[in-house]
């Protein structure tokens, strides 16, 4: 029973990781790619770890630790990457009514 649940979780995790990859390819600019990458890889990895925990219950504690690290570091690194990309002036999708409060506040008119 537990092994079936574990297998299902692994498949679900893998599916979200595939979506993350698809998002990286399909999204038009850096910031949107980071969005797709962060969310889907976080949930995908967590589900995969959960699946492993069901298959090998004796590993559960260590897997939980890994999950905790990922949960904390994944969004943080995305933030830093996003900020760096924005500062370096990464190309963003041109749109008529684009809002970019960060650029406004920093005072780059260009």
């Amino acid at each position, binding site marked *: 029973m537990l092994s079936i649940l574990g297998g299902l979780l692994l498949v679900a995790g893998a599916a979200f990781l595939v979506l993350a990859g698809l998002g990286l390819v399909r999204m038009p600019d850096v910031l949107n790619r980071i969005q*797709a990458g962060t969310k889907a890889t976080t949930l995908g990895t967590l589900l995969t770890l959960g699946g492993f925990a069901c298959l090998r219950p004796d590993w559960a504690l260590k897997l939980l630790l890994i999950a905790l690290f990922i949960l904390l570091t994944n969004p943080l690194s995305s933030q830093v990457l996003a900020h760096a990309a924005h500062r370096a002036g990464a190309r963003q999708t041109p749109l008529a009514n684009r809002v970019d409060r960060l650029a406004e506040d920093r005072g780059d008119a260009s």
Partner: protein
Amino acid sequence: MDSNRSTSAKPELPIGFLPLFATLLLLWILLHGSLSLQVLAIGIPAALAIAWLFRDGLSFVTDFRFRSTEALRAAPRFLLFFFKSLVIANIALARVVLSPKLPIDPGIVKARTRLKSRMGRLLLANAITLTPGTLTVKLDGEWIYIHCVRVAATDIEGATAEILAGFERYLEVMYG
């Protein structure tokens, strides 16, 4: 009272040191799953050194209000709300990525947080990053810059404030 006395006796010990040391040592012991002498002989000096180097850094317990029972009750509710948002975020993202037209309308908006503590703000920023269509780009004092996959056509600021309020409700009680 007791904590007051100990801090005045040793004024050079920074507040962040002990919680960080305890957290690191606990993680180390959990990672090894044993309390043998060898494990501790490596773990304690390493944890001491890291805690000293990063004594002004943050850990989970920094600013957490252990005294208040409300804070202890809010923590699991925050986690539940967080995971719910994470799942919703992923389903929303899956729909965007899989739809042929790629319905996005990105932009960076700005929001102000009520939270005062550093750890509260950090957790808020992390939570925003993992929730539907939003990504924290910069944390600057009480201002948070958020990249949105789809910017609301009208009332941008109101829509973002709503996202913040969902998490702030819990974090305000937990960290202040």
